[in-house]
């Protein structure tokens, strides 16, 4: 049963991610990426990590992707303006981009080849450590004891990112606006 769910979620994730990359309209890309993240959170449930599954949905699908949606709608760009409309999808155009496609394929082959050299490593049965180990309590205790400093540093990071985003996206009050010109 778990195997069936795994292959379904894996297929959904891979197909959705492929479509994110193959899509011309960034709006569809964002929505498809949300589908991919939902399937990933299903995989986290299968991996005995309910905390990661919930956080994946709340933070990624809920917060980050909504931010992307806002920007896509705000800028209102239909699609890429490089004469791509005349080409078929998955025909990536001239020169350097074909090279990029080849490089990505080479990376995939290399990774798979490297992973095939690892011996088959089945998971321990879930019941063995499900009772004490996978709970949110264990994560919380570890996060606020061993990783307390990293956790606090993260809060500073987010504060800096917030201030930076506000400064960067602010309209310069002294710059000539389009109305003046």
């Amino acid at each position, binding site marked *: 049963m778990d195997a069936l769910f795994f292959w379904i979620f894996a297929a959904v994730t891979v197909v959705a991610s492929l479509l994110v990359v193959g899509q011309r309209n960034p709006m569809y*890309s964002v929505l498809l990426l949300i589908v991919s993240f939902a399937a990933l959170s299903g995989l986290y449930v299968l*991996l005995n990590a309910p905390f990661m599954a919930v956080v994946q949905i709340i933070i990624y699908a809920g917060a980050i992707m909504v931010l992307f949606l806002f920007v896509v709608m705000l800028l209102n760009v239909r699609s890429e303006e490089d004469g791509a409309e005349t080409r078929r999808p998955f025909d990536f155009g001239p020169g350097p*981009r074909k090279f990029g496609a080849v490089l990505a394929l080479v990376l995939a082959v290399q990774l798979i080849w490297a992973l095939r050299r690892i011996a088959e490593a089945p998971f321990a049965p879930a019941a063995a450590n499900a009772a004490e180990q996978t709970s949110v309590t264990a994560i919380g205790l570890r996060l606020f004891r061993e990783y307390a400093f990293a956790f606090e540093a993260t809060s500073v990071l987010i504060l800096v990112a917030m201030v930076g985003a506000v400064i960067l996206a602010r309209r310069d009050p002294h710059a000539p606006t389009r109305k003046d010109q």
Partner: protein
Amino acid sequence: MLPEPTLNTYLALSAVLFSIGTAGVFLRRNLITILLSIEVMLNAVNLTFVAVDRFLGTVDGQIIAFFVMTVAAAEAAVGLAIIIALFRHRQSLSPDAFTSLKW
């Protein structure tokens, strides 16, 4: 019957996702889609962390994946702010429009 997933299956899936993200960064000519591809890559790495975590029976991998998520949130916020500022200057999202720093 479908084969039971092992650690190797998860690692292979994660490798495939990472390659898809890399392909997106190489192939797309739209700053927003490039950022989305980076998110795909970050998620592939997160999947690796959680799968290895399950294999070892610890929770440290999940905590690191959690930190990756917060960094991804910060990166998305700053990245999108930069994209808005760039779009205001050039009215374009193509990375080819921003070559002033090219020598």
